């Protein structure tokens, strides 16, 4: 059964293809090719939403992307509940379910509408005035209430089950907009052989040819020509036609972001289809053919459902075959609305009257309306609309005052003129210019390699548009390097031509009135609000916008900005260009997070790095922690152990027998070449020339400012070869730091740098039994203390595979680090583990590693240092070569502040109560009785329970710390002040006997 407002014979949809859908739970019938808006209108439904602030009933204003009112929630299932979908854009599919928003308990009876009656309380800037006091109420009362009351749609509360894809593309000419201008430009560019992409936001290209019944091109109806032209473009190998694709952002160097809606219009999208596809297109030339947007008339109660743009009514009639009413009124200040009256009248709809603000306009559109017998009233204004849930009348008055006359209508079609869509041009950083004659902003100065054509360029008339667009398309292709055009320009047989219109409030909504004449429907901003903003001191249009919220939210003022600007200018008594235009920012229309994130979420958000022993550790029940992108074994709990029990056991076992630790994540860089030692001398504070091959040294790297940048043990494998280790987190930036100096400051040095972090797996075997565990597996290396003392490195074989075997220690015990090619990492670990089992060794994780090194006062760069710590501050002066003439940071170290007394120095802290473990980051004071705010003299950098010491231990940066040995300091915490004693940094084996023994 055909819906009540579907007109037989009108429109282009095939009546046979029906689709059923529901709105607020009620079922309706539509036709494939409908939008949700046209399908609802076909069923006579105009009331679709409640406004943001006043909860006023709202209907459809437009038939396109500029829609401010008809925002609905589309519900596919429990996880797919998309809010704020424009019903004018959403294509209908069989089974579509939509709900209205911002109403309770129902759309026709909404409690929030009390705001409309109480509206004097909610005038412009009310947020800033009403909710100022008391301050504490903002967080607890005002904000939650406002957020609950003022929301539009409701966010889905489950993870988005859809997937999104992303593509990059390059082309010679990118045409944005697929109306008459865009198609003509694309044809011209494509005929040269240039690679062309043309994109349009609608399902079918054609733009305003969709409703312009007066357009005829190449002997065809305008829209039919568009379809034929697009078909021929699609047949060309050098052309890509993107439909349902909105260009939302124009970035530097002709880089344009588009979102293609792939499956939101489908009943059951295949599982392999993305919901949306993000296109990032780099074009040599861009042709902007973005058209123009019709403005509404600003008069009292112009927001009643049934009042809409004239072009929208034409679209619903001429494309969807739907009449927006049975008895319509027209209110206009330009010619284009006459065409709507004519189309509707011809379709059998009664046109009650045309009200035209202009005094004596003439032209073919007016003649045609008159010839059809439509009543036309010149020099008159609609001063009020009647009705609440649906418009019921319009009250007409001569524009300079006089007797009123109320005309019953069920819809009002309005047009105040057309605003060129300069959004993308403006985003490209082009400067718009105001044309005083036509009262519109048009592209002025270009900042990028683009050109505007047609309505967005202020070009009126179909013939002029096609001429301009075709020439621009050909030139863009030529400028991009293509050959000359060989095609023929489409011939325009007939076209519509619109005149100018008006900006600002219509008579009856002027400065002396208090009526609700809406400028911005989405934000409930009236003409009066704009004037009030000016009266309260707002001078810049940017301030007016923020004070009133005019032009904000999902539609970004596509219909309201020019009216708002004109009213502000009039109130200020300034010409429009002097008041300025608010900045156009991306996105042009709302873009989902999904399309931008694409596949980069969950495990694909960031790469995960796993060491060679990850699987083994996981099988042992290790708990992992994230260290940058690495997953590192944190601790290895046995059955029944919590973290503390596990760490305590691991720490004790390492010092008693031995422990195995995966140190593979350390950064490793091979420094090779005849000048390798010279390079090391320049990059590290230590002397390297005299380090013998086979020996290691702890190195400190500074930045030029003298602060510690990184540290690590360096082994000299040969006179021209160093195996450098870095911190785990510093691996990439140390490599970058080295390359920077090598390439730009010391390019005379003959050195190669190679990152070998991922080539070598590293098993640290630490503890008194470490040698006994490793030795049986090693070939060709004498591991005795005499042959291989602490801080040495040997090359040989372990388990039959090559190894770089370091004797070094980050625990203070005799220790080794077994480097093997990463592919053998797990096998060698398992072999070492098997040997270790014979001696009762443990596997230990990063937490135990931290405790063990802190027991020895070994620092961790980035934990015990923070980018403002010098080697001297850290007690590492011994590692700075005193006789060196140059190294990075040598000058920085002598800066006055870096040699001043009283600098913060690293020291140990022991709590007076050995059971109390300090909090890392806690502040330290000398006198806990001083008034707040206290003078803070340092902070805790590392703090642990040490099972080996039987007490807590901590490291801290304290002002003048090394002069405070034995002093009592205080750590004030929320639940009391903790007394601590300043000590040295070494808590175990101060003489270092265990390292060598």
């Amino acid at each position, binding site marked *: 059964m055909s819906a009540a407002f579907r007109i037989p014979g009108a429109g282009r949809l095939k009546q046979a293809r029906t689709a059923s859908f529901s709105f607020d739970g009620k079922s309706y019938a539509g036709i494939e090719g409908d939008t949700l808006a046209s399908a609802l209108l076909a069923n006579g439904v105009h009331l679709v939403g409640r406004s943001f602030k006043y909860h006023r009933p709202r209907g459809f204003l437009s038939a396109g992307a500029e829609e401010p009112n008809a925002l609905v929630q589309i519900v596919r299932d429990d996880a797919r509940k998309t809010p704020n979908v424009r019903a004018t854009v959403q294509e209908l599919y069989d089974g579509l379910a939509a709900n209205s928003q911002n109403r309770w308990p129902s759309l026709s009876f909404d409690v929030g509408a009390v705001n409309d009656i109480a509206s004097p309380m909610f005038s412009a800037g009310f947020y800033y005035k009403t909710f100022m006091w008391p301050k504490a109420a903002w967080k607890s009362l005002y904000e939650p209430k406002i957020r609950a009351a003022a929301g539009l749609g409701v966010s889905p509360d489950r993870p988005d089950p859809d997937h999104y894809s992303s593509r990059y593309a390059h082309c010679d000419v990118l045409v944005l907009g697929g109306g008459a201008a865009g198609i003509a430009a694309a044809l011209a560019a494509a005929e040269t052989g240039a690679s062309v992409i043309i994109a349009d936001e609608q399902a079918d290209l054609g733009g305003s040819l969709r409703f312009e019944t007066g357009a005829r091109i190449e002997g065809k109806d305008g829209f039919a020509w568009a379809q034929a032209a697009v078909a021929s473009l699609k047949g060309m190998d050098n052309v890509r036609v993107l439909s349902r694709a909105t260009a939302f952002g124009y*970035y*530097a*160097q*002709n*880089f344009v972001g588009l979102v293609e809606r792939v499956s939101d219009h489908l009943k059951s999208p295949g599982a392999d289809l993305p919901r949306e596809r993000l296109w*990032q297109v*780099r074009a*040599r030339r861009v042709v902007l053919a973005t058209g123009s947007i019709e403005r509404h008339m600003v008069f009292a109660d112009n927001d009643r459902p049934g009042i809409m743009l004239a072009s929208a009514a034409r679209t619903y009639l001429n494309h969807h075959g739907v009449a927006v009413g049975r008895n319509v009124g027209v209110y206009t200040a330009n010619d284009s609305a006459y065409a709507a009256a004519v189309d509707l009248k011809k379709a059998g709809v009664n046109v009650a009257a045309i009200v035209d603000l202009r005094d004596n306009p003439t032209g073919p559109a007016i003649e045609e309306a008159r010839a059809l017998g439509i009543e036309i009233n010149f020099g008159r204004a609609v001063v009020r609309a009647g009705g609440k849930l649906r418009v019921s009348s319009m009250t007409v008055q001569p524009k300079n005052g006089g007797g009123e006359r109320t005309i019953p209508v069920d819809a009002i079609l309005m047009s105040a003129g057309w605003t060129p869509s300069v959004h993308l041009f403006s985003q490209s*950083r082009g400067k718009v210019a105001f044309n005083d004659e036509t009262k519109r902003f048009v592209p002025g100065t270009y*900042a990028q*390699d683009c050109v505007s054509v047609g309505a967005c360029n202020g070009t009126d008339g179909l013939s002029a548009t096609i001429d301009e667009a075709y020439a621009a398309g050909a030139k863009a292709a030529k400028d991009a390097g293509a050959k000359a055009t060989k095609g023929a320009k489409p011939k325009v047989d007939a076209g519509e031509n619109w005149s100018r219109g008006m900006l600002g409030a219509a008579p009856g909504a002027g400065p002396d009135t208090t009526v609700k004449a809406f400028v911005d429907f989405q934000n409930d901003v009236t003409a009066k609000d704009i004037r009030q903003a000016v009266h309260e001191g707002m001078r810049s249009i940017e301030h007016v916008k923020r004070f009133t919220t005019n032009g904000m939210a999902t539609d970004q003022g596509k219909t309201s900005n020019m009216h708002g600007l004109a009213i502000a200018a009039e109130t200020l008594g300034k010409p429009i260009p002097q008041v300025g235009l608010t900045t156009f920012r991306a996105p042009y229309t709302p873009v989902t997070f999904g399309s931008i994130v694409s596949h980069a979420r969950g495990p694909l958000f960031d790469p995960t790095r796993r060491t060679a022993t990850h699987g083994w550790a996981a099988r042992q029940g290790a708990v992992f922690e994230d260290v940058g992108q690495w997953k590192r074994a944190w601790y290895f709990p046995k059955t029944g152990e919590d973290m503390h029990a596990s760490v305590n056991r691991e720490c004790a076992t390492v010092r008693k027998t031995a422990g195995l630790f995966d140190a593979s994540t350390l950064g490793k860089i091979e420094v090779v070449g005849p000048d390798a030692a010279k390079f090391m001398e320049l990059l590290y504070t230590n002397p390297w020339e005299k380090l013998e091959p086979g020996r290691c040294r702890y190195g400190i790297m500074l930045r*030029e*400012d003298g602060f510690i940048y990184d540290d690590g043990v360096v082994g000299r494998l040969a006179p021209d070869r160093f195996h450098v280790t870095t911190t785990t987190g510093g691996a990439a930036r140390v490599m*970058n730091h080295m*390359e*920077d100096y090598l*390439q*730009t*400051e010391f*390019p005379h040095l003959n050195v190669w740098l190679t990152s070998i972090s991922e080539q070598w797996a590293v098993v640290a075997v630490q503890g008194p039994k470490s040698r006994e565990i490793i030795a049986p597996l090693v070939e060709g290396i004498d591991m005795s203390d005499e042959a291989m003392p602490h801080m040495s490195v040997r090359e040989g074989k372990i388990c039959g595979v090559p190894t770089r075997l370091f004797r070094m220690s980050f625990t203070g015990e005799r220790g080794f680090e077994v480097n093997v090619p990463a592919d053998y990492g797990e096998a060698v670990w398992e072999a070492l583990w098997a040997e270790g089992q014979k001696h009762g060794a443990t596997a230990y994780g990063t937490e135990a590693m931290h405790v063990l090194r802190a027991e020895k006062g070994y620092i961790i760069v980035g934990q015990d240092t923070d980018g403002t710590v010098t080697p001297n501050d850290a007690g590492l002066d011994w590692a700075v070569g005193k006789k060196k*003439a*140059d190294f990075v940071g*040598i*000058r*920085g170290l*002598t*800066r*006055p502040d870096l040699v001043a007394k009283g600098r913060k120095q690293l020291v140990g802290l022991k709590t007076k109560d050995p059971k109390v473990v300090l909090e890392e980051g806690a502040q330290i004071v000398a006198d806990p009785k001083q008034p707040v705010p206290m003078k803070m003299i340092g902070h805790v950098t590392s703090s642990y329970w040490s099972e080996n010491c039987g007490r807590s231990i901590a490291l801290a940066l304290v002002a003048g710390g090394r002069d405070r040995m034995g002093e009592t300091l205080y750590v004030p915490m929320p639940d009391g002040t903790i007394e601590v004693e300043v000590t040295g940094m070494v808590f175990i084996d101060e003489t270092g006997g265990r390292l060598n023994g």
Partner: protein
Amino acid sequence: MLLIRCPYCEEERPELEFRNAGEAHVARSANIAGESDDDFEKFFFIRSNPKGIIYERWRHIHGCARFFNAVRDTVTDRFIMTYKAGEPKPSKLPKNSNDVVSK
């Protein structure tokens, strides 16, 4: 996203492959240890931060890994030219900067 011409690879590559490395032509003194506080301040802390043409260092870190120099307009983000590390600061800039980035 910008397109940047690497003077070593001799082609334009997406910005994702590059990393900015601060102002160019700030030379480290061969006798840095003997520099005055004022000279060290100029070398290490003071940068021109211009509105307009800047000479800066970039690294093709996810490409050939080379550091090079670029001339960029900080207002439009347009790259006017790029040249190899160690080459002198160009005394003349190309007139039509468009051709450099999008020829």
